């Protein structure tokens, strides 16, 4: 019997890594849904935050209607209000994914280190990317279930009118956004591994500022109206997959054409269409997955060398 070669071991390694992916995704797909309390805590409670922002737009809409008698003007104000409410419901739904990326992807290796699992993962004969990939797939599924529940309830409760103009593109944008977002989460996971206790605070810090810069509750193109600072903010925001994903989805499902889309600086009057954003998101997904692989390998080596891989409470 000949000794196994690197090539002959590929199927075996592939099988092992697939098993690792399934094994790590399992608790998030099956385990996380086993206890029904998630329906209340993770699907219904987020509606409260969405409701607060919806009522702001409603209050603004009602104030704008005061003293207006022209039916065309009334229809215009109502349409604007509805499109912004739809933006809030869509953004509020996508918040679940960003929070999942922060708390269940980026922070995960740090948590695993704290509870003593990380050393077991490191000893297991699998690729670290398989581990992160399993976490990402499980997280995407788990969060999608919660987000879709929130979206459906939100649309019904707030009587939001949505109009899907291109279903295939919508599905494509949604999944590519998730892959790019979770790729970013995988990259951050290795950074957090090194940063230790600061990981928790960093995740907390990346909530509101990203909700703001990515335009979770308003069309992000609104930044363009704030001159150079707004333009710089917009440029920064487009590096975060949520920004382009949300804007593209808004363009596809909010009726009445794009509301404040992202302008292209070198083409006056032009803006990023959903197709173009889809293309950029594909590039971002590839870049983040590549960076995740590189940073993970580098920082794992660094953490091993500095003896920080298994040290807790640091």
């Amino acid at each position, binding site marked *: 019997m000949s000794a196994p070669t690197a090539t002959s071991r590929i199927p075996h390694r592939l099988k092992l890594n697939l098993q690792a992916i399934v094994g790590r995704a399992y608790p998030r797909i099956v385990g996380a849904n086993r206890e029904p309390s998630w329906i209340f805590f993770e699907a219904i409670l*987020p509606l409260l935050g969405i409701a607060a922002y919806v009522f702001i737009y409603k*209050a*603004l809409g009602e104030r704008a209607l005061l003293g207006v008698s022209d039916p065309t003007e009334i229809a215009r104000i109502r349409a604007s209000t509805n499109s912004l409410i739809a933006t809030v419901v869509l953004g509020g739904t996508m918040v679940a994914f960003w929070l999942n990326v922060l708390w269940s992807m980026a922070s995960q290796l740090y948590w695993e280190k704290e509870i003593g699992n990380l050393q077991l993962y490191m000893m297991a004969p699998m690729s670290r990317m398989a581990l992160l990939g399993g976490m990402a797939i499980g997280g995407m599924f788990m969060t999608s279930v919660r987000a879709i529940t929130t979206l459906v309830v939100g649309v019904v409760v707030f009587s939001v009118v949505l109009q899907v103009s291109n279903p295939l593109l919508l599905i494509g944008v949604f999944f590519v956004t998730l892959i790019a977002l979770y790729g970013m989460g995988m990259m951050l996971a290795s950074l957090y591994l090194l940063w230790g206790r600061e990981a928790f605070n960093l995740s*907390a810090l990346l909530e509101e500022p990203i909700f703001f810069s990515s335009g979770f509750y308003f069309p992000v193109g609104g930044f363009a109206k704030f001159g150079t600072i707004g333009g710089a903010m917009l440029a920064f925001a487009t590096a975060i997959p949520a920004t382009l994903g949300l804007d593209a989805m808004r363009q596809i499902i909010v009726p009445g054409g794009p509301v404040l889309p992202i302008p292209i600086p070198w083409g006056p009057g032009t803006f990023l269409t959903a197709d173009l954003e889809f293309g950029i998101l594909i590039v971002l997904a590839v870049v983040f997955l590549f960076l995740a692989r590189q940073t993970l390998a580098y920082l794992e080596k660094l953490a091993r060398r500095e003896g920080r891989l298994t040290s807790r409470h640091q």
Partner: protein
Amino acid sequence: MSNLARKHWRSFKWAAWLGWEMDSNWTEPWLFMVYSVIKPIAGAFILVLMYSVFALIGQFTDPDLFSYIYVGNAFFIFVGNTLFGTFQVIQSDREWYQTLRYTYISPISYYTYIVGRAASKVAVATLAVVITLAFGALALGVRFEVSLVQVPMFLAALVLGLFCLISIGICLAGISFMTAKHTHGLAEGIPGIFYVFCGVLFPLTALPGWAQSFGRGIPLTYWFDLTRRLILPSNTINSGLGFFSDIEILALLLASSLIFFLLSLGIFKLGEYMARKAGKIDMTTSY
């Protein structure tokens, strides 16, 4: 000072110091300060952009409503911080640091200890509120109008509002004696309820009738309304509480704060008793 008062003061003082150390010792003080104010400022910016976008699309501006939203959001910083500061103590000490059993058997009042632990979060929140309000006044044109005569009432309302928030936080802490992993859900859910039903970001009248009635049953609704009355110029917004005078609102706030204080004592004792009886007082569940 009596022995009992001294004991409570000592518990409070050291718990506050511990809370501050735990919150801030992961980094340099200046970075901690930046970190502490970036979140609320970003939260305020979300509202600024929401308003600006509506103004752009709807071709409509309403500085009164913007000030209403901005001030409500600034004072809401107290809500999130104070509530989280109180009711995460048990969960974090029990599950994360696993020090609850040692603190619990020490000769202190555990109730006062939790209040002390929340104190550092209240202090940081105060700074964030001041910075947010100053930013609103200096950069966004939010106009404040405070007369010296109203300062005592404003301070009284602030103290009562915080007292009420801490009492609600302790009620939740009492419940968290018995729960395993729901602290984060509660941390988002309970402030979320206040965010929607207390007229924080929009007048109560924007809500459906049943929700307005619910909001009027929450003491924080009165706190937010009174605070706005005392620091903003008079405006045309119908907050839904216009039929109460300032003094009546303060009296309502005082009464409801006392009710919540008594409730917090009862719920905390009950939660503690049930947790001890069920052997859950120092149980770790790895959540």
